[in-house]
């Protein structure tokens, strides 16, 4: 900056300095225990290690490859990586069938590689959590191999065995399209074993204290290595009881409290993120009284975001948020647009599901199970304004946002790949061979990268977007850095602002601290420009300051506050106190009709 600049004169009097000093990007993290609320303000980035970057030219992404790309992730501005399962596994369920809890799949590297990853990530101010499947193991796990040998070996009761397959008929079959029963016959032991998911994934027996201790040992092992927490896969199913559905049982909550106790006592600041697909009021049980999981995914919000922008009205969003309990103090919802699974439509009505299928899965190949197997960009026809609108919602609604790898460059999907592989193709780094993902031969790649004219790596890649300051990647980076300056987006209270235009969704995020900031976020869910009169009563006489440009807008008066929005447009305003210059004199504007 030139030394002749006169910031004190040039600064607009209505714009106080940001209330919070931004965390400089790239400063090594404070120890987690010194900042126990970090996850409430964090932006998570979901990494599919297999598809991220291949460091050893074998066609499969690995942990060293992820280390090599940490500078990029730091540049992007994410706070925490969430790794899909990296454990040894026969890979019959994308690694969610774990064959060894204390090791790393050889495709991905070694435990030492993981330790390096943690050190290097922490050095860059990035935390790392990992998937952990505690409900079941692979049938190739040594525990199960031993358990199935006989009815009296030391691990005989580590799994759930029964002589017939009639017990617990109330428990539904989760994977109805592949499994007919929750019981499977083991010819060796001549008994049935219990499995809530695939028959090659036997459920562990949590009524056996040895299993509980073994799993706590696994948790300690990885936390000792430096991991910052776990995403707990399929938590509701840990126990079975007669006459129940076997989901969300009190015993399951008791186990999670015990797990949380270990973390609070021995590893303060590390986190548990629960995957429980259900209505928010039910899922919130996994927060406990702040003594179970730190974060729970909010599943029903995501399809309603898509529904709202197609219907051009806010009600799908406001209705689900009205049914969403506040996370208890010290806890947080996790929200997302897309992830490694299909866009699941379990949490919408049949009518809404038909509508979303009709809107977003015009080709039957796009349907997967109870959902839509597409990435964000193809879902939105790569509409830049609509994509920005949805990210604006993701980054400003209550909850910690989770970004899926590749969505930051608007990557596409491959519908011709089976099951969920359509959204797990290699990350597109450059326009070079294999999209810069790997230097292996093309035929060696775990999945082919996209090469179509719209989404192929020649057209869509990180290098091109990094070079172009007006790319979506740069836009998202700016928004992530902006959001980071204002913790209120993570922890603030949420209140919908009344507005009679049904296409406009406006809300205020208010800091729970007495002197904290308030953010007004206004979104146009329509593809046409819209006016909106906002009823900002409690914020009368505040001055909205547009966040990206710090542009002061007119004061909020007694009348509804008028804003205009471009198609799919949005505003983020900080609602600042009136201009300090006027504070001593008479108010510059006497709001008309103010009560005497």
């Amino acid at each position: 900056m030139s030394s002749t600049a006169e910031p004190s004169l040039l600064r607009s009097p209505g714009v106080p300095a940001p209330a919070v000093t931004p965390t400089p990007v790239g400063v090594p993290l404070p120890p987690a225990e010194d900042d126990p609320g970090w996850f409430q303000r964090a932006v998570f980035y979901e990494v599919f290690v297999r598809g991220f970057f291949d460091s050893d030219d074998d066609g499969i992404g690995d942990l060293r490859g992820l280390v090599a790309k940490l500078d990029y992730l730091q540049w992007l501005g994410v706070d925490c990586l969430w790794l899909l399962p990296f454990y040894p596994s026969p890979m019959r369920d994308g690694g969610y069938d774990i064959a060894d809890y204390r090791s790393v799949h050889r495709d991905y590297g070694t435990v030492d590689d993981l330790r390096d990853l943690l050190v290097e990530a922490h050095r860059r101010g990035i935390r790392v959590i990992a998937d952990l499947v505690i409900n079941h193991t692979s049938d190739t796990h040594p525990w199960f191999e031993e358990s199935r040998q006989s009815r009296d070996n030391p691990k005989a009761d580590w799994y759930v065995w029964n002589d017939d397959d009639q017990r617990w008929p109330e428990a539904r079959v989760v994977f109805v399209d592949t499994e007919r029963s929750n019981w499977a016959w083991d010819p060796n032991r001549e008994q049935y074993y219990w499995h809530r998911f695939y028959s090659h994934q036997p459920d562990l027996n949590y009524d056996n204290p040895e299993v509980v201790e073994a799993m706590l040992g696994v948790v300690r092992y990885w936390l000792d290595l430096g991991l910052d927490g776990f995403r707990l896969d399929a938590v509701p199913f840990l126990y079975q009881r007669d006459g129940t559905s076997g989901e969300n049982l009190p015993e399951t909550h008791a186990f999670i409290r015990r797990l949380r106790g270990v973390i609070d006592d021995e590893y303060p600041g590390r986190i548990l993120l629960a995957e429980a697909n259900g209505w928010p009021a039910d899922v919130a049980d996994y927060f406990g009284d702040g003594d179970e999981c730190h974060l729970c995914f909010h599943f029903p919000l995501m399809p309603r975001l898509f529904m709202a922008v197609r219907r051009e009205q806010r009600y799908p969003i406001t209705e689900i948020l009205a049914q969403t309990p506040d996370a208890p103090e010290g806890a947080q919802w996790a929200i997302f647009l897309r992830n490694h699974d299909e866009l699941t439509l379990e949490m919408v009505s049949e009518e809404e599901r038909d509508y979303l299928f009709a809107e977003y899965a015009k080709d039957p190949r796009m349907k997967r199970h109870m959902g839509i197997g597409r990435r964000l960009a193809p879902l939105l026809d790569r509409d830049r304004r609509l994509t920005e609108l949805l990210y604006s919602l993701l980054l400003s609604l209550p909850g910690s946002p989770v970004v899926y790898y590749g969505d930051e460059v608007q990557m596409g999907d491959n519908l011709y790949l089976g099951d969920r592989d359509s959204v797990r193709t290699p990350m597109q780094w450059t326009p070079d061979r294999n999209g810069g993902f790997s230097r292996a031969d093309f035929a060696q790649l775990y999945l082919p990268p996209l090469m179509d004219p719209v989404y192929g790596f020649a057209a869509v890649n990180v290098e091109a977007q990094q070079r172009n300051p007006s790319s979506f990647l740069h836009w998202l980076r700016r928004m992530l850095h902006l959001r980071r300056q204002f913790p209120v987006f993570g922890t603030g209270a949420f209140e919908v602002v009344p507005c009679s235009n049904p296409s406009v969704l406006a809300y205020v995020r208010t800091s729970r601290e007495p002197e904290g900031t308030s953010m007004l976020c206004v979104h146009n869910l329509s593809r046409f420009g819209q006016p909106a009169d906002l009823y900002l009563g409690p914020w009368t006489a505040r001055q909205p300051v547009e966040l990206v440009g710090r542009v002061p807008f007119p004061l909020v008066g007694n009348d509804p506050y008028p804003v205009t929005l471009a198609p799919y447009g949005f505003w983020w305003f900080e609602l600042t106190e009136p201009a300090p210059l006027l504070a001593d004199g008479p108010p510059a504007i006497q709001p008309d009709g103010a009560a005497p």
Partner: protein
Amino acid sequence: MSPVRTVETAGRPLPEHAYPALAEAVAAMAARHPEWLFPMLPQGIPAPPAVPAIDLAAAPGTVGEPAAPVPSGSTVLAGDVAVRVADVVVPGRPGVVSVVADLGPRTVHALLGLRAPGAETFPLPDADEAPVGLLDLDDGLGVLSDALGDAQYCLALLGAVAGQQGDVERVRRAWMSDESTAIAFDDRIALAVYGRLPAEPAPHPGLEMYLALDEVGFNHVAAPIARWRRGGWDLGVVRDYEPGAAGGWALALTSLRDLYASDGPPERAGADFGPEARRLGTMAARMHLGLDQAYGRRPGDVVAWVGAVERSVQRVAPELLADAEVADLLAALRSMSVPCPAIRTHGDFHLGRVERTDLGWFVFDFSPGGTPVFGAGTVPPGMHAGAEGAGPVYRSPLADVADMLWSFRHVADTAAAERDPSGRLGLSALARAWESRNRRAFLSGYLATPGIRGLVPPATGLARNLAAAFELERTAAKLALHA
């Protein structure tokens, strides 16, 4: 649900020697309230020619937007005003006086603020704060102005009617319609004041119906707080206020604009209205079940209804009766032998009378005795000749259903004309597709509501036929209004 408070303000009448001054003030107020006089009757004060016709069926412009100002030259003179009663509602200065007066054949209700000369005013935005007169009473000279145009009078009125002011921070005009002017307090509660009253003291039928529905637990209405009465007239009501509500008309337009721009079938167009139409149908059925619970039912006379439909069509479009389909429809209904209950109905149920809030659909402005705007000489749809004075009107709930279905057609055509005034784009096929989809959705929501089958003909085909006949009547009434 806390009980609705009823407040009488007949306690402190003003002396008759104040009437001439009050008449002057009411005459001056008339210039600010064109809705008091619209539409004009043949004799009496000439209607101001520049006031646009209020399209009641469409109605979107009548709610939430101020009425068009009366041009100068249509002045009401004090001699045209006969003060019936005048009461002090809020004593002292500043105080509020309520005046019921006859303007020619119309009976109106004016609220006048009274303040000491030179006292401070707190005008609401867009309000005309100019004094409308002076009042010289025993306690000294007072300046009269429109009480609903000034925050201090509005607050005092709220205190008098609702019993407490609380710590209100913001006062705003919420809406001005042909029936009422409403003031919002902190965008939380609204005081609606009726400007036009029946000639003889009588309860406001729409207000009674609204309160009765609330009483039986129907929750698609804003919660009432207090009812303001004076000598048998209903002067106003205090109720919850939901400023973020979107009018049904506006929401339908949102859908139609997207459809007309996208050229697809309506169920594939982005802003599909179908699910909302379905929810609206469910609300309509719940409303009718509530009205049945509140007022009971009577046996309906299908033949008489069909006769009335025929007569009203005969008046405006006799050629329609020669149409084979119409003739078949009416004949089929005449020979219908199944019982068809009659209940009290909304009376003017269309997209302009419903609003979508973040909680769901709400309904307002009940007109169970017909709408004043239709005028004393005309027969509003579904209100058959001779109904007036013969007690409350009972008719098939399908008459309300027909009004809403009719309104789907009307909004689709309105949006098409808005986008394509020349008609060159050929939007009418899309308009019909939208209409038909949302009719079906509304009806399926309506007929799928548990309990509603007891109020409509048991066979869906019969129910549709009867609704079609009522819709014909609605169209005829609309044509009559424009004739």
